[in-house]
Protein backbone atom coordinates (compact mmCIF):
# COMPACT_ATOMS: atom_id res chain seq x y z
CA UNK A 1 0.00 0.00 0.00
CA UNK A 2 1.20 3.55 -0.66
CA UNK A 3 3.57 5.16 1.75
CA UNK A 4 4.83 8.53 0.54
CA UNK A 5 7.22 10.93 2.24
CA UNK A 6 7.37 14.61 1.31
CA UNK A 7 9.76 17.34 2.41
CA UNK A 8 8.38 20.76 3.38
CA UNK A 9 10.80 23.66 3.77
CA UNK A 10 10.48 26.55 6.17
CA UNK A 11 9.15 29.69 4.49
CA UNK A 12 8.76 28.04 1.09
CA UNK A 13 5.59 29.89 0.10
CA UNK A 14 6.35 29.40 -3.59
CA UNK A 15 5.80 25.64 -3.31
CA UNK A 16 3.25 25.66 -0.50
CA UNK A 17 0.31 23.52 -1.49
CA UNK A 18 2.26 21.29 -3.85
CA UNK A 19 2.47 18.40 -1.37
CA UNK A 20 -1.29 18.59 -0.83
CA UNK A 21 -1.88 18.67 -4.59
CA UNK A 22 0.27 15.55 -4.92
CA UNK A 23 -1.54 13.76 -2.10
CA UNK A 24 -4.91 14.64 -3.64
CA UNK A 25 -3.88 13.23 -7.05
CA UNK A 26 -2.51 10.11 -5.41
CA UNK A 27 -5.74 9.39 -3.53
CA UNK A 28 -7.94 10.05 -6.55
CA UNK A 29 -5.78 7.65 -8.56
CA UNK A 30 -6.37 5.03 -5.86
CA UNK A 31 -10.10 5.38 -6.47
CA UNK A 32 -10.90 7.03 -3.15
CA UNK A 33 -14.24 8.83 -2.96
CA UNK A 34 -13.99 12.53 -3.93
CA UNK A 35 -15.71 13.86 -0.82
CA UNK A 36 -13.18 12.05 1.38
CA UNK A 37 -10.28 13.23 -0.80
CA UNK A 38 -11.57 16.77 -0.31
CA UNK A 39 -11.41 16.33 3.48
CA UNK A 40 -7.88 14.93 3.30
CA UNK A 41 -6.81 17.78 1.00
CA UNK A 42 -8.12 20.39 3.46
CA UNK A 43 -6.23 18.78 6.37
CA UNK A 44 -3.13 18.29 4.27
CA UNK A 45 -3.07 21.90 3.10
CA UNK A 46 -3.41 23.20 6.66
CA UNK A 47 -0.64 20.89 7.91
CA UNK A 48 1.58 21.87 4.99
CA UNK A 49 1.00 25.60 5.57
CA UNK A 50 1.77 25.14 9.26
CA UNK A 51 5.12 23.60 8.37
CA UNK A 52 5.88 26.46 5.95
CA UNK A 53 4.75 29.24 8.27
CA UNK A 54 5.64 28.02 11.76
CA UNK A 55 8.29 25.30 11.58
CA UNK A 56 12.00 25.12 10.84
CA UNK A 57 11.04 22.66 8.12
CA UNK A 58 9.70 19.15 8.28
CA UNK A 59 8.16 16.21 6.53
CA UNK A 60 4.76 14.88 5.67
CA UNK A 61 3.91 11.23 5.23
CA UNK A 62 0.90 9.64 3.61
CA UNK A 63 -0.12 6.10 4.45
CA UNK A 64 -3.04 4.31 2.90
CA UNK A 65 -4.29 0.94 4.09
CA UNK A 66 -7.64 -0.81 3.59
CA UNK A 67 -8.79 0.64 6.91
CA UNK A 68 -7.51 4.19 6.93
CA UNK A 69 -5.72 7.10 5.34
CA UNK A 70 -3.12 8.50 7.71
CA UNK A 71 -1.36 11.80 7.30
CA UNK A 72 1.63 12.56 9.50
CA UNK A 73 3.35 15.91 9.71
CA UNK A 74 6.42 16.43 11.86
CA UNK A 75 9.07 19.10 12.09
CA UNK A 76 12.41 20.08 13.55
CA UNK A 77 10.94 22.68 15.86
CA UNK A 78 10.50 25.16 17.36
CA UNK A 79 7.63 23.31 19.06
CA UNK A 80 4.43 24.63 20.61
CA UNK A 81 4.47 25.69 24.26
CA UNK A 82 0.72 25.46 24.82
CA UNK A 83 -0.93 22.87 22.58
CA UNK A 84 -4.44 23.39 23.99
CA UNK A 85 -4.24 27.11 23.26
CA UNK A 86 -2.85 26.46 19.78
CA UNK A 87 -5.84 24.26 18.96
CA UNK A 88 -8.33 26.99 19.88
CA UNK A 89 -10.07 28.66 16.99
CA UNK A 90 -8.79 32.19 16.48
CA UNK A 91 -5.49 31.71 18.31
CA UNK A 92 -2.38 32.24 16.21
CA UNK A 93 1.22 33.25 16.70
CA UNK A 94 1.63 34.28 13.06
CA UNK A 95 3.17 37.70 12.42
CA UNK A 96 1.64 40.61 10.53
CA UNK A 97 3.22 39.69 7.21
CA UNK A 98 1.80 36.18 7.32
CA UNK A 99 -1.61 37.56 8.32
CA UNK A 100 -1.58 40.04 5.44
CA UNK A 101 -1.37 37.05 3.09
CA UNK A 102 -4.62 35.70 4.49
CA UNK A 103 -3.04 33.15 6.82
CA UNK A 104 -2.64 33.15 10.59
CA UNK A 105 -6.32 33.40 11.42
CA UNK A 106 -6.04 30.57 13.93
CA UNK A 107 -8.15 28.26 11.81
CA UNK A 108 -5.66 25.67 10.63
CA UNK A 109 -5.73 23.23 13.53
CA UNK A 110 -9.52 23.55 14.08
CA UNK A 111 -10.01 22.86 10.36
CA UNK A 112 -7.89 19.70 10.63
CA UNK A 113 -9.84 18.54 13.69
CA UNK A 114 -13.15 19.19 11.95
CA UNK A 115 -12.47 17.29 8.71
CA UNK A 116 -10.59 14.30 10.17
CA UNK A 117 -11.84 11.28 12.10
CA UNK A 118 -8.93 11.31 14.54
CA UNK A 119 -6.36 14.00 15.19
CA UNK A 120 -3.42 13.90 17.58
CA UNK A 121 -1.00 16.74 18.10
CA UNK A 122 2.06 16.34 20.30
CA UNK A 123 4.72 18.97 20.72
CA UNK A 124 7.74 19.79 22.81
CA UNK A 125 9.30 23.26 22.77
CA UNK A 126 12.84 23.13 21.45
CA UNK A 127 12.28 19.71 19.87
CA UNK A 128 9.38 19.74 17.43
CA UNK A 129 5.77 19.00 16.68
CA UNK A 130 4.07 15.84 15.44
CA UNK A 131 0.59 15.64 14.00
CA UNK A 132 -1.16 12.39 13.18
CA UNK A 133 -4.35 12.87 11.20
CA UNK A 134 -6.49 9.84 10.45
CA UNK A 135 -9.41 9.26 8.11
CA UNK A 136 -11.30 6.01 8.46
CA UNK A 137 -11.79 4.17 5.20
CA UNK A 138 -15.11 2.43 4.74
CA UNK A 139 -15.84 0.19 1.74
CA UNK A 140 -18.13 2.88 0.27
CA UNK A 141 -15.18 5.27 0.12
CA UNK A 142 -13.83 3.29 -2.79
CA UNK A 143 -15.32 4.39 -6.10
CA UNK A 144 -15.33 0.77 -7.29
CA UNK A 145 -17.75 -0.19 -4.50
CA UNK A 146 -20.28 2.44 -5.41
CA UNK A 147 -23.53 1.39 -6.99
Amino acid at each position, binding site marked *: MPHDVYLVDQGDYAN*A*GSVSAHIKKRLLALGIDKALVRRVA*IASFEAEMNLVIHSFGGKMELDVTDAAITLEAYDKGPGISNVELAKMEGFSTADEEVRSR*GFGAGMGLP*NIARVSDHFVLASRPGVGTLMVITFTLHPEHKEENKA
Partner: protein
Amino acid sequence: MTIELVARLAQANILAHGDHARDVTCGYACDLLSWVMARGQKGMAWVTVQTHLNVIAVASLHEMACVLLPDGLEMEGAVLEKAREEGIAVLSSPLSAYRLCGLLYQNGLHDLPG
Protein backbone atom coordinates in the same frame (compact mmCIF):
# COMPACT_ATOMS: atom_id res chain seq x y z
CA MET B 1 -22.51 29.94 -15.97
CA THR B 2 -19.47 30.28 -18.21
CA ILE B 3 -16.29 32.12 -17.22
CA GLU B 4 -16.91 34.47 -20.15
CA LEU B 5 -20.31 35.40 -18.74
CA VAL B 6 -18.79 36.01 -15.31
CA ALA B 7 -16.20 38.24 -16.99
CA ARG B 8 -18.88 40.14 -18.88
CA LEU B 9 -21.05 40.67 -15.79
CA ALA B 10 -17.99 41.73 -13.80
CA GLN B 11 -16.74 44.02 -16.60
CA ALA B 12 -13.51 42.14 -16.02
CA ASN B 13 -10.30 41.56 -17.93
CA ILE B 14 -9.35 37.92 -18.19
CA LEU B 15 -5.75 37.86 -16.92
CA ALA B 16 -5.45 34.08 -17.20
CA HIS B 17 -7.62 31.80 -19.26
CA GLY B 18 -8.49 28.76 -17.23
CA ASP B 19 -10.10 25.54 -18.21
CA HIS B 20 -12.91 26.64 -20.54
CA ALA B 21 -14.81 23.42 -19.99
CA ARG B 22 -15.09 24.29 -16.31
CA ASP B 23 -18.54 25.61 -15.53
CA VAL B 24 -18.92 28.25 -12.81
CA THR B 25 -21.37 26.72 -10.35
CA CYS B 26 -21.22 28.88 -7.23
CA GLY B 27 -19.53 31.92 -5.74
CA TYR B 28 -17.78 32.90 -2.54
CA ALA B 29 -16.00 35.97 -1.17
CA CYS B 30 -13.32 35.89 1.52
CA ASP B 31 -9.66 36.86 2.02
CA LEU B 32 -8.77 34.36 4.76
CA LEU B 33 -7.24 31.37 3.05
CA SER B 34 -8.08 28.80 5.72
CA TRP B 35 -11.66 29.98 5.69
CA VAL B 36 -11.86 29.46 1.95
CA MET B 37 -9.99 26.16 2.22
CA ALA B 38 -12.73 24.95 4.56
CA ARG B 39 -15.56 26.06 2.29
CA GLY B 40 -14.26 25.90 -1.27
CA GLN B 41 -16.18 23.93 -3.88
CA LYS B 42 -15.58 22.66 -7.35
CA GLY B 43 -16.54 25.23 -9.98
CA MET B 44 -16.48 28.12 -7.51
CA ALA B 45 -15.87 31.74 -8.50
CA TRP B 46 -13.81 33.15 -5.62
CA VAL B 47 -13.74 36.90 -5.01
CA THR B 48 -10.61 37.95 -3.11
CA VAL B 49 -8.09 40.78 -2.77
CA GLN B 50 -5.31 38.25 -2.15
CA THR B 51 -3.10 37.99 -5.23
CA HIS B 52 -0.21 35.73 -4.18
CA LEU B 53 0.68 32.23 -5.28
CA ASN B 54 -1.07 30.41 -2.44
CA VAL B 55 -4.43 31.66 -3.74
CA ILE B 56 -3.90 29.45 -6.79
CA ALA B 57 -3.01 26.49 -4.55
CA VAL B 58 -6.31 26.82 -2.67
CA ALA B 59 -8.30 27.32 -5.89
CA SER B 60 -6.59 24.37 -7.51
CA LEU B 61 -7.12 21.97 -4.58
CA HIS B 62 -10.85 22.70 -4.80
CA GLU B 63 -10.90 22.69 -8.63
CA MET B 64 -12.43 26.15 -8.62
CA ALA B 65 -13.37 27.77 -11.92
CA CYS B 66 -11.96 31.24 -11.35
CA VAL B 67 -10.45 33.79 -9.03
CA LEU B 68 -12.10 37.18 -9.33
CA LEU B 69 -10.04 40.19 -8.22
CA PRO B 70 -12.01 43.32 -7.33
CA ASP B 71 -11.05 47.02 -7.48
CA GLY B 72 -8.83 46.57 -10.54
CA LEU B 73 -6.28 44.45 -8.69
CA GLU B 74 -3.60 42.72 -10.76
CA MET B 75 -1.64 39.51 -10.29
CA GLU B 76 2.06 38.98 -10.90
CA GLY B 77 3.12 37.08 -14.00
CA ALA B 78 4.44 34.06 -12.12
CA VAL B 79 1.14 33.69 -10.28
CA LEU B 80 -0.82 33.95 -13.53
CA GLU B 81 1.47 31.36 -15.08
CA LYS B 82 0.67 28.97 -12.23
CA ALA B 83 -3.04 29.68 -12.64
CA ARG B 84 -2.86 28.76 -16.34
CA GLU B 85 -1.01 25.55 -15.47
CA GLU B 86 -3.72 24.61 -12.99
CA GLY B 87 -6.62 25.54 -15.27
CA ILE B 88 -7.81 28.35 -13.00
CA ALA B 89 -9.07 31.51 -14.73
CA VAL B 90 -8.09 34.84 -13.16
CA LEU B 91 -10.29 37.87 -13.78
CA SER B 92 -9.68 41.46 -12.76
CA SER B 93 -12.71 43.70 -12.33
CA PRO B 94 -12.86 47.45 -11.68
CA LEU B 95 -15.87 46.86 -9.41
CA SER B 96 -15.77 46.41 -5.63
CA ALA B 97 -16.06 42.96 -4.05
CA TYR B 98 -19.46 43.97 -2.67
CA ARG B 99 -20.71 45.03 -6.09
CA LEU B 100 -19.31 41.92 -7.77
CA CYS B 101 -21.04 39.54 -5.39
CA GLY B 102 -24.31 41.41 -5.78
CA LEU B 103 -24.13 41.30 -9.56
CA LEU B 104 -23.22 37.64 -9.76
CA TYR B 105 -25.85 36.64 -7.22
CA GLN B 106 -28.51 38.66 -9.03
CA ASN B 107 -27.65 36.83 -12.23
CA GLY B 108 -28.12 33.42 -10.70
CA LEU B 109 -24.71 32.53 -9.33
CA HIS B 110 -25.45 31.50 -5.78
CA ASP B 111 -23.28 30.51 -2.83
CA LEU B 112 -23.83 26.78 -3.05
CA PRO B 113 -23.62 24.46 -6.03
CA GLY B 114 -26.80 23.35 -7.70
